[in-house]
């Protein structure tokens, strides 16, 4: 090769600085989205006969309850941990072009499996029992999601419908399991499982400050998962295949990637993360399983993954935000008597605006560069 091409190729390697549009998409749009959602939340309160003073109080409570004290921060992190875990799986799915709405069910099944392992095997040391219970959760969640993945790959059944059906089935399945004699707590007629043994519990982290602080070592599991998913998506051949199949399945197929296999692997992985989130709840927070212990985390995870733009770091940030809303929302309910369901409205609104940058640009014409879209002929 001659010198000219050599120098040209050197030049081509230079990375352009991120453009203004990228910055707007990554930072400005989410910030505006949160602000608008909070304003509209206030409007919703006004519409339901909540007076202005209470609205003020509730937003103060929202902040205090999420970051105002050690306990608040502990609660925020505790709420964020399963959200981030489940939505990491969701993010990988999005990247691969799969819309897994089934995190809720996978979370239930995974959490259930973790509880069963967690109350069995008495006498096992923690360093064996706890990992085993976590793995059981991941495996169960993964297999459950794998059903939807297999159906999609083998028959073309859309994963949105099959995962929703699997969600609905998981509620009944958990009800059934909780009434099995080997699972149900002795002497109880209602569906509730035996308690997880100490050796399988995720150790609390802040007990030395105050025994009531619930933050547990699932936090580390979550942080490791964030790093792992980042590495998987952007550094490995698996991640490359996932992203390629999501961005252009046909081109991926032409490049020799096996789309069916990738669909199944991605779904199993997403399910495993959701299962881990479930295990995190049962082993770290609840200590047992009851019907509906998933508490909608699987659905909130969709929002978190969208808000985080399916990027592991973005998911972490979005998860912390939603965790804060969750923790603050509880405080809000106590202090101002405003239903925590308001948080669900705010969350939904945030995603609407995140998903519709054009809409945000229209509402806030300032703060954005004028739209210059290079069209095609």
């Amino acid at each position: 090769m001659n010198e000219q091409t050599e120098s040209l190729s050197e030049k081509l390697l230079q990375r352009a600085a991120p453009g203004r549009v990228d910055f707007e998409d990554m930072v400005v749009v989410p910030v505006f989205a949160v602000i608008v959602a909070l304003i509209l939340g206030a409007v919703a309160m006004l519409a339901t006969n909540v007076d202005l003073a209470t609205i003020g109080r509730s937003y103060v409570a929202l902040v205090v309850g999420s970051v105002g004290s050690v306990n608040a921060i502990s609660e925020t992190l505790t709420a964020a941990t399963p959200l981030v875990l489940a939505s990491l799986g969701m993010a990988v799915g999005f990247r691969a072009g799969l819309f897994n709405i089934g995190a809720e069910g996978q979370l239930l099944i995974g959490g259930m499996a973790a509880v069963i392992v967690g109350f069995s095997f008495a006498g096992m040391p923690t360093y064996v029992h706890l990992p085993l219970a976590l793995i059981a959760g991941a495996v169960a969640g993964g297999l459950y999601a794998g059903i939807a993945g297999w159906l999609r790959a083998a028959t073309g059944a859309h994963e949105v419908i099959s995962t929703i059906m699997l969600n609905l089935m998981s509620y009944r399945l958990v009800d059934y399991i909780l009434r099995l004699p080997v699972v149900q707590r002795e002497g109880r007629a209602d569906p509730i499982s035996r308690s997880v043994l100490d050796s399988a519990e995720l150790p609390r982290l802040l007990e030395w400050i105050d025994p009531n602080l619930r933050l547990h070592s699932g936090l580390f599991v979550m942080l490791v998962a964030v790093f792992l998913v980042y590495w998987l998506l952007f550094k490995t051949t698996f991640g490359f295949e996932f992203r390629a199949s999501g961005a252009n399945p046909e081109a991926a197929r032409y490049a020799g990637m096996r789309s069916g296999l990738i669909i199944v692997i991605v779904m199993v992985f997403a399910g495993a993360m959701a299962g881990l989130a479930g295990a995190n709840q049962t082993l770290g927070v609840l200590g047992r399983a009851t019907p509906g212990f998933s508490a909608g985390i699987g659905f909130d995870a969709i929002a978190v993954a969208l808000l985080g733009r399916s990027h592991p770091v973005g998911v972490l940030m979005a998860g912390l935000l939603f965790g804060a809303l969750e923790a603050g929302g509880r405080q809000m309910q106590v202090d101002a008597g405003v239903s925590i369901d308001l948080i669900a409205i705010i969350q939904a609104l945030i995603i609407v605006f995140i998903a519709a940058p054009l809409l945000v640009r229209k509402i806030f014409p300032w703060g954005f560069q004028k739209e210059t879209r290079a069209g095609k002929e």
Partner: protein
Amino acid sequence: MAKTMNPIDAQARKLDTAKVRQARNTGVILICLSVLVAYVFAFGTSGGDAVFRLSRPNDPWAAPNLVVPAMAFSYIAAAVLAFLGARQFMRGGVKWTGLSMGFGLLLAVAAFLVWATAGKSFSLTGMLQATVVRAVPIALGGLAGVLSERVAVVNIAIEGMLLAGAFTGALVGSLLGGFGGLAAAVAVGGLFGFILAALVVTYRVDQIIAGVVINLFVLGVTSYVSSQVYQEFRFLNNAPVFRPVRIPFLSDLPVIGPVFFQQNIFVYGAFIMVCVATYYLFYTRSGLRARAVGEHPQAADTLGINVYRTRYINVTVAGMVAGFGGAWFTLGSVGRFDEGMTNGLGYIGLAAMIVGRWHPFGALMAALVFGFADSMQQKLALLQTPIPSEFLAMAPYIATIILVAGLVGRARPPAADGQAYIKE
């Protein structure tokens, strides 16, 4: 000169075509069903007759009870299934695959019912009546799906529109009475249809994301209001319920009368809407244009058809249909709203649309199948079968998955389904 080969040529060459493979698989499934019926239902039966009541004693023209000897029926069903399966497997009977499968499934379900009822009796007419009632929200959800997907807008938001309709129906119904509530439910459904259209058409939000977001939003708003307001003001959640309307003469017919002609306005409304939608989509100018927009929006655009407006109108109307369907949950059955009371029926409606091949009547038929699965599990729970009630409750969901997985490959969605149309 060479023309494309006819099927006989292809068979002579023993090509392992997709259809032959499918026929084989069908054969295997049928044989498995036959074994299941023979072993579980025939051996497992306590003997005795299964009695299906067709009429109530005070009906004008009472039909006699249908008495089926359980053991004999199971054996005959197993034998027929085995024959069908073997025939599919050996001959690769390409032509009859779908029909054999359909008939086989029907037979297996019948055998299951007979087995569960053996030695007892229950009202078949009652179950069919419940089937139709339970099919209504699914059929209307499916119809809403048909209307919007025919213009290539994927409508995951049906669930949310149903929920919004249910909520509004209860709220406004409590204040203004049934018809006021119904009108408001339709209006709010239409509003969400319009919002969905705005998001996906004008703001080009991914269609599935837009749908999911609307669902989350509606769930949030309705739950918030029920916990914030209904707790305190209970009279706001106490709407009148539409009673069944007997259609003179027709409602007296045995079986058919109670099933189709002693229902409330939601059932009649659903049937009428399905007919109107079919006429609209396939026999009118606007329908032709709507379908063109769904198949090839650019072509429609070059012919002067306003793609965006067509999508807005159809998706809004779809929302109104779903809003009407949503009112069923409150004004059509219990009169009060509960958080998340639609319980995934909107998604089952979407499945009905796929199974019904994007045709209003197809969606209605599929909805009746789901309604049947649902009402059957309810009745069976009363009959105390050895199957745990939790598993019976899963029946409609399993039916959905099987039907979608089994049929999706053969149904063809509108060509542009799910794609935004970007005009320069």
